[in-house]
């Protein structure tokens, strides 16, 4: 499936070329030892069959165990630049950042490597209109460690995008990091001098939004089909691992070869290439049921057609359609099962009451007192993630909590979940998710101006983006929407209230031909997150290992 004007497939091509360049620069047979976290992302770039054509004959994961003996000429370690991984590589013997190299030096194994090289892959295409940099720790690095590496990488990635799709003439942004990214881009462009790629600009606007501008949205529960799958099971690189027993009768159709050891889980590939999934992925979950049932009926009706087929010709036509029908049937079955699983999750536990609490907070109700619901959740030792999410949400919506309330929550959490979570609380404070109230709450203004909450939202036939949270419209998405119309000048009040500088810049184009059509968005992100993962990346549990 190709997208609109801008298709990130080109990015994938560019990535692939980089990888091939690296592989081909090393003659002879090769074994690739993967960093497990990278393997998934790379599967979008090149599969095993493709790698085989480039003399890769063995693949392993980086683990603490010894490498099995093999007779290849070269062993390539593909790893993210983390020192802990370097430790593992070290163990395994007996990429590329300086720190890592040094760590290897410390271990005295640097010498056994012929070369350590950087593979400049920044963007992974997840869909035709979505690329991710797969930097889950970006927000944490910036907020907790003031490590600007990801800002640099984002700027580099945007330069890559501009290299493929041409210079982007208009740049808008909100937030400190957005500004830094822009400044680095300007700098990088200057360094390139006149050697800019001569590509007709295909992207008209670039909107940079710093996560710290909109901390509310990741804390709210997404209620789309896609969002809920991610919420409950976690989507990684467009695949999701689900409990296997529900799929018992269907899993025989396509047993993934590498999956044999995990009989209890079933891996499902989620891609917009699947027509049914493309239709329902962004629907509010309550609208998914009716749609699935309609599809189920149409599958049934198609099969019924065989009775109507009288002549040999008609029968032949029917037979020709069978494979396609089989695929469709399989797809309906899979998604019905997934929807059932989600339905179970929703019905059980505190999902519903927590969601209700969340929506009350988002409407600005009772955010200035201790919430009995949160207290009860803590008293029953519900999942810490849920509890922290609600507390953070209440805090942000209220523009900070009163010292006494914050204290109370913190004590409650420590008492119930243990002192091990002390650092996590510290981190949340450092990241600006928990803080003591200073001044009046600004959320009411923002909510009103940006229409963050909508009362009469139609989940089945949405006309406004607020359907994704059944009533709450994501602030960052609203910012983008308002930029299109009526323009950011209309909401200066809100922009002042939100943290960080606002950015409206134009890049001078050498000579640009511009054709305007309706806005069409492509998205580049550092990582796709949900409320759970967002907080997980910020947490530090002590004594875990």
């Amino acid at each position, binding site marked *: 499936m190709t997208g609109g004007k801008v298709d990130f497939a080109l990015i994938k091509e560019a990535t692939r070329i980089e990888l091939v360049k690296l592989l081909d620069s090393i003659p002879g047979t090769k074994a690739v030892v993967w960093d497990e976290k990278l393997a998934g992302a790379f599967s979008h770039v090149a599969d095993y069959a493709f790698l085989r054509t480039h003399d890769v004959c063995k693949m392993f994961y980086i683990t603490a165990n010894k490498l099995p003996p093999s007779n290849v000429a070269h062993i390539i370690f593909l790893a993210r630049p983390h020192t802990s991984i370097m430790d593992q590589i070290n163990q395994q013997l007996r990429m590329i950042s300086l720190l890592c190299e040094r760590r290897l030096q410390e271990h005295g194994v640097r010498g056994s490597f012929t070369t350590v090289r950087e593979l400049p892959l920044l963007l992974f295409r997840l869909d035709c209109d979505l690329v991710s940099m797969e930097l889950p720790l970006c927000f944490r690095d910036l907020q907790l460690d003031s490590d600007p590496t990801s800002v640099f990488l984002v700027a580099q990635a945007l330069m890559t995008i501009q290299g493929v799709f041409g210079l982007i003439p208009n740049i808008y942004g909100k937030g400190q990091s957005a500004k830094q990214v822009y400044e680095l881009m300007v700098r990088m462009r200057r360094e390139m001098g006149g050697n800019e790629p001569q590509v007709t600009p295909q992207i008209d606007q670039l909107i940079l939004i710093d996560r710290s501008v909109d901390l509310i949205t990741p804390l709210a529960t997404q209620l789309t089909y896609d969002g809920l799958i991610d919420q409950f099971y976690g989507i990684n690189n467009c695949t999701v691992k689900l409990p296997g027993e529900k799929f018992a009768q269907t899993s025989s159709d396509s047993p993934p070869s590498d999956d044999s050891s995990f009989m209890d889980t079933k891996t499902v590939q989620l891609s917009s290439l699947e027509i049914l999934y493309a239709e329902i992925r962004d629907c509010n979950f309550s609208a998914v049921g009716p749609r699935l049932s309609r599809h189920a009926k149409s599958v049934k009706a198609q099969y019924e057609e065989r009775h109507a087929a009288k002549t040999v010709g008609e029968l032949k036509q029917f037979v020709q359609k069978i494979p396609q029908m089989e695929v469709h049937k399989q797809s309906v079955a899979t998604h019905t099962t997934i929807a059932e699983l989600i339905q179970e999750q929703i019905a059980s536990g505190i999902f519903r009451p927590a969601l209700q609490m969340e929506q009350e907070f988002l409407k600005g109700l009772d955010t200035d007192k201790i919430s009995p619901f949160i207290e009860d959740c803590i008293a029953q030792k519900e999942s810490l993630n849920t509890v922290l999410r609600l507390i953070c949400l209440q805090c942000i919506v209220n523009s900070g909590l009163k010292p006494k309330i*914050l204290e109370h929550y913190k004590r409650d959490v420590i008492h119930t979940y243990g002192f091990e979570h002390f*650092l996590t609380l510290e981190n949340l404070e450092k990241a600006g998710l928990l803080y003591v109230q200073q001044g009046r709450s600004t959320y009411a203004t923002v909510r009103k101006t940006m229409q963050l909450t909508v009362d009469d939202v139609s989940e089945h036939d949405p006309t406004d983006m607020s359907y994704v949270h059944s009533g709450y419209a994501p602030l960052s998405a609203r910012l983008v929407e308002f930029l299109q119309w009526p323009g950011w000048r209309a909401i200066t009040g809100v922009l002042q209230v939100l943290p960080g500088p606002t950015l409206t810049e134009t890049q001078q184009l050498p000579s640009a031909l511009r054709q305007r059509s309706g806005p069409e968005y492509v998205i580049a992100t550092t990582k796709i997150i949900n409320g759970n993962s967002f907080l997980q990346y910020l947490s530090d549990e002590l004594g875990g290992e």
Partner: protein
Amino acid sequence: MTLEVVSVNGDATSYYLDSTSHLVQEADGLRVLGSITHDVLQKVPLVVTETLGIGSMAPGALLLEAAKGFQCLSNQERSTRANDCLGMIKDSVEEAVNQCLQAAQHEYRPQAQKMLLRAALFGKSFIPEMNPEPCKKAIFTLRVLNAVRDYRVGLPLTWNELEHLTLPVLLDRLVYRRYFPLALQIADFLKLPESDGTSRILAHWACYKVLQPSQKSDEQIAKEINSKLGYTPGISYTDIANRADQAGRKQLAIKVLVLMRLGEDQTALRRALQSGDTDLIYTVLHHLRQKLSSGEFLMLIRNFPVAQSLHIRSCQELDMEQLRDILVQEDDFHGQGLLRIKEAYNTYRTDSHQASLVGAAELFRKAKSESACQMTEEQIKLNKWQMRLEESQQKPYAKKSLHDTVHQLLLDGQIKETEKLRVEFKIPERRYWWLRVVAHAQANHWEELANFSKNKKNPIGFEPFVDACLKNGNKIEAQKYAMKVRDENKITYLIKCGLLEEAVKVAQEQRSASSLTKVLVACGPQHQNLQSRIQVLLKVGLDVGEGGVTDTPATSGQIMHAMIWV
């Protein structure tokens, strides 16, 4: 007193001097030093006589005349005089220009210099192909000469002398006379290469500076030097430090050395930071760390927040000791406290765990992080309690949270102990009730639960009682509490406990059609009687209760609708 000057031809000139004077021989003249005067006596160079001599017809003189004519105010006079004179030197303009330039070079009064230079430039404009360098050199050099001839400097150099001396020597002389600013300005003005000019002068200045006795502290002097020298390359810091050392100022020497080297390194670091490339920054940091002593290194990076946080970052992974040094240097007590807490959890020994926490609490107090301090202290207290409990109960309690500790005690029926803990740790009523209810039910202490439920001050209602009983599979116990549930939840809870008859009764009392419907939905095949009764009631109820029927208000927010499956 007179000074008699006799030429080789025997001509003599007398000068009157008003005080006892000394004569100093120069290459092309004579300096006369009186008590309050300083004169230069020189044979007027031929070129000057030719150009400025009265009635001279040398090309230079004519060019000067032409230039003067050109500058005249009245238009007519201007054109004729200039034209006439130019006409006379038509073929020797170049010579005339050179004469004017040379005359200017030997002239002492700026006024006359200007006049001659103007004439030279005027003449030069008629010869487009003429080399501009001599003119430029004359103008620049004269400016320098005038500056050093100023009475405040008192270096009455002639042009020829300067030619022999060369500029660097002149600068050195200025430096020896401690005219550092003038020397710097000259070097700047002539755009001398830094190694000859600026940096040499600054180095001399710094050496002089360290030798001067001063009120200022060594630190201050070192900083002053650093701020002046900044990033000028080619300065030998060791020289300056050696000089200080020779003067017996060891401390200053060290400080200078540190700051000087920093100057260079700062530039590198700043460049790396500007690029935004973290790898590059790490490269510079790594290099600096090897080059500088630990203290110097830390001092340097503290001026660069990004570099510092990157360094801290790498320390977190590689070098905890260094991290502690940084936090100590920055007086970051809170950060040190957090580090101690991390340590506490990296050790397996109970005593050192406890000791680390005590240290952390102390640091938090220093940092005025009251809440952190309080929580840490509570944890220390909890550890102590747990140790005591482990002894008395012979069960592991360590590493349990307060919640889990109380829960465990309740499961074991140690209600007295839990009461102590509740008081000691000020567990809020609400949480304590929840704990009791859940734990009693889990341990099947039904009697205990019943006793507890009789407590008047129930902050959580009876819903948790029902839920807890049901969760542990005791419907009978659950039913005991169902009727006590708050009105708005009563129907739901009665249905949960399977008390459908009672639910119908309550619904009837509440005159709520929706409640009745709820019960009806809950009816199974075994409740056929009840079902039909409800249906009758619903019919009657609707007829009777029109307007009086109060439905429970819809929950705020649009919550998931029930799904209908095929």
